[in-house]
């Protein structure tokens, strides 16, 4: 130690030399790695959920069975009936080529789908808040062209949204648990420091150091290892997310929704190390002040 540091604001208690302090940054790094990934997954699922809502909300599909549908007249009749319904904003037959392409993943590119009795599909967009009676509509369509069925996306969407919500709750819980682990690290480091440096603390108190002065030693120590661990953990998580992003199938992939993060969400993740540091500092202060207050 040089004379130059003798009068600086450097820590009076040698907390960084404590055996437990060596592992503090790594525990925080591991915890922040998991917290970052969990929150990123939660946000990505939320983004996908909103995409699903936007894409499918207010839409239904109508299937006209093959024998009638292939002729085209039945489809035209159903489309006319749909367009005449006040609660329906628009009804458009789906190009048979598109219908066949939807089946391609199951049947293969070389399948002779022209020979299959595929139903005709009609995309229907409902008017918002029109109060559409799907059952009554299906009865009317079936009467016009027997076998015509309505596929209400809302029912399947509800299942998907419920699962997405469960995943988000799970992500938040995982993030909270590992955030708690990072916080506990500050508590254990502070308690260990208070115990192993009892003699030095007694000397400081004897020469007029208040609880706040002593607590600041632990606050500074917690800030030091939290910011280091937090940056390492978040950087590793960001690297993992970028790597995962390269292997992600993207928006055209079948059955897999596109899950990306907005710039604001990346900023939120980047704020995790300073937020974790502030929490660790507050935790260290409260822990130290409470422990010191028990001494006469």
């Amino acid at each position, binding site marked *: *130690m*040089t*004379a130059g*540091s*003798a*009068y*600086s*604001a450097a820590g*009076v208690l*040698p907390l960084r*030399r404590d055996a437990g302090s060596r592992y503090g940054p790594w525990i925080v790094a591991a915890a922040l790695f998991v917290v970052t990934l969990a929150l990123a997954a939660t946000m990505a699922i939320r983004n996908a959920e909103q995409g699903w809502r936007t894409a499918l909300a207010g839409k239904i599909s109508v299937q006209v069975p093959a024998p009638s549908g292939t002729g085209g007249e039945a489809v035209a009749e159903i489309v006319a009936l749909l367009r005449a319904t006040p609660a329906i904003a628009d009804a458009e037959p789906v190009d048979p080529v598109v219908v066949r392409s939807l089946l391609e993943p199951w049947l293969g590119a070389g399948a002779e789908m022209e020979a299959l009795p595929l139903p005709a599909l009609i995309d229907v967009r409902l008017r918002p808040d029109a109060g559409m009676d799907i059952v009554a509509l299906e009865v009317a369509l079936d009467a016009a062209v027997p076998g015509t069925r309505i596929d209400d996306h809302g029912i399947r969407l509800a299942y998907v949204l419920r699962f997405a919500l469960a995943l988000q709750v799970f992500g938040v819980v995982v993030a909270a648990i590992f955030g708690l682990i990072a916080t506990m690290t500050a508590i254990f480091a502070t308690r260990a420091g208070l115990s192993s440096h009892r003699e*030095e603390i007694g*000397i*400081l*108190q*004897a*020469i*007029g*150091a*208040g*609880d706040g*002065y002593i607590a600041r030693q632990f606050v500074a120590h917690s800030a030091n290892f939290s910011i280091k661990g937090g940056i390492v953990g978040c950087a590793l998580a960001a690297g993992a997310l970028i790597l995962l992003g390269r292997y992600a199938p993207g928006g055209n992939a079948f059955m897999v929704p596109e899950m990306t993060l907005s710039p604001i969400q990346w900023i939120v993740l980047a704020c995790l190390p300073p937020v974790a540091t502030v929490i660790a500092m507050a935790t260290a202060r409260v822990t130290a002040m409470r422990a010191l*207050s028990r*001494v*006469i």
Partner: protein
Amino acid sequence: MRRPVVRISTVTMAEAFLTAETGVVRLEDVSLQYGSGPEVLRDVSLSLETGSFHFLTGPSGAGKTSLLRLLHLALRPTRGTVRLFDRDVSRLGRKHRPALRRRIGVVSQEFGLISHLTAAENVALPLRIAKANAGEIRENVTELLRWVGLGRELDELPEALSEGQKQRVAVARAVIARPDLLLADEPTGNVDENAAMRLIHLMEELNKVGTAVVFATHDESLVSRFGHPTHVLDGGELVRADPVEGMIGEHAEA
């Protein structure tokens, strides 16, 4: 030899007003016991004036350390009143103690140096706690350590210092912020006779610039070489006080 003129203001306006007192210490019928054990101090009454020098003597276990710990606010009396700087501190809350402790310097037999800090860093601690600026700290610490003869040991860790040097570092730390009261608990216990004499002379120099000194030792032969008021504790009672100028209170009048 010029004494460093360090004085860091760590007192409030109200406390500054109180520093106009003449009695640094006033004990009124003070008794102390640890838990449910026997009383280690019994009905001790004592008054010490500002800028006075007192020896506190008596055999081991007489209660000297307990009395000094009371004065340093490390203990609370079981009965009686302890007044420091004209303020009743008998039941003082812990948040008010640090400010008062900064007006009191302490030197003990164990030195109480922080082992990983250099001599200069140890001496600088009271000023750092008082939030003095780095330049002021550097200047005063260097000057004071030179004054106590440790100009070359500024950057030495305590383990590299002799017992006498450690004691001088402890004294320098105790007086760096110019305390109003200096409590020395058996400070000569771990040093040879020459070092002990030098230490007392050093404290007399500090006393001349206004610091009241209470010097506790069981070595009555050492005490007899100086003409300062002497209080004798035995079995927790103040059994004798030599009536020398600078002491007031019932024992002085006895």
